[in-house]
C-alpha cells in the first residue's frame, strides 16, 4: 500500500505545471515552424516533448515510481517502443 508523503502535493503541482508548460512549448514550436511542409526536426522535438509528458504522468500521477519495478519497466518499454517507431517512421519519410 502506498502512503502519502508531506511533499507529495507540492510535487504533483510542479509536475502539473511542467506538463502544461511542455504542452504550450510543443504547440508554439509546431506553429512557429509551420511552413506547410514535413519538418523532421520539429517533429522529433515535439515527439520528445510528448514522450517526457507521458513518462511524467506514468511515473508521478500513476505513481509508478513507487510501484514494483516490473510494472515500471513494462510501461517504459511501451513508451520507448511507441516513440522509437514514430520517430523512425517520421524521419524515414524525409528521404522518400
Amino acid at each position, binding site marked *: 500500500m502506498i502512503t502519502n508523503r508531506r511533499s507529495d502535493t507540492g510535487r504533483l503541482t510542479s509536475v502539473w505545471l511542467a506538463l502544461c508548460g511542455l504542452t504550450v512549448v510543443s504547440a508554439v514550436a509546431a506553429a512557429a515552424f509551420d511552413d506547410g511542409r514535413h519538418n523532421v526536426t520539429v517533429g522529433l522535438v515535439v515527439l520528445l516533448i510528448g514522450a517526457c509528458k507521458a513518462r511524467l504522468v506514468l511515473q508521478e*500521477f500513476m505513481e509508478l515510481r513507487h510501484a514494483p519495478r516490473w510494472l515500471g519497466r513494462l510501461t517504459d518499454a511501451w513508451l520507448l517502443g511507441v516513440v522509437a517507431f514514430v520517430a523512425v517512421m517520421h524521419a524515414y519519410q524525409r528521404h522518400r
Partner: protein
Amino acid sequence: MRRRLLAMVPSGEDLDVPGSINMWLFVVGELFIFAFYFFVFMMYRTHATADFVGSQRHLNLAVGAGNTVILLTSSYLVALAVQAAREGSHDRARRLVRWTVALGVVFMTIKLGEWAYEVRHGYTFPSDDFFMFYFALTGVHLFHVLMGLGILGLVLHELRTPALQRQFVVEAAGTYWHMVDVVWIVLFALLYVLR
C-alpha cells in the same frame, strides 16, 4: 528454463501496485492496443506525408493544446483526490473527483464542437486518410473518456457512502483516468503537432 520463466511472473509483493493489479493489467492491455493504432497511423502517414501534413493544418492547434491542458488538469485533480482519500479526507476527495468529472465533460464538449466544426467545413470521415484516422482515433479515445467518467461516477458513489470509501477503488479509477491522459498526450503529438 521453466524456473527462469516462472521467476518472470510477478507474485507476492510484486503485485503491490497502486489501486488493483486487475486495473493495471487492463490499462497496460489498453496501452498496447492503442500502440497498434499509432503504428497503423504512422504506416499510412509514411505513404502520404504531404497529404497528412496538409490536412493536419485544418485542425485548430490552440483548441487541441487547450483541450490537452484541460485533460492534464483533470489528471492532476484525480491524483490529488487519491491523496485526499488516503488521508481520510473523503469530502475533499469527492470535491476533487467532481471537478475531474466536470473537466472531463468540458473536454468531451470541446472535442464534439471540434468535430462539428470540421464536418461543417467539409472534412468528414471519408474525406481523406488523415481525417479518417482523426475521427477514428479521437472517437475511440472519446469512448474511453466516457468510460472513465462512468468509473469516476462509481468513485463518487463510493466516497458518498461511509460504509464503502475503499482506497483501492479511488486509486484504480485514478489509474484508468491517467491512462486516458497518456493516450491523449500521444494523440495530441501525432494529430496536432507532428509536422
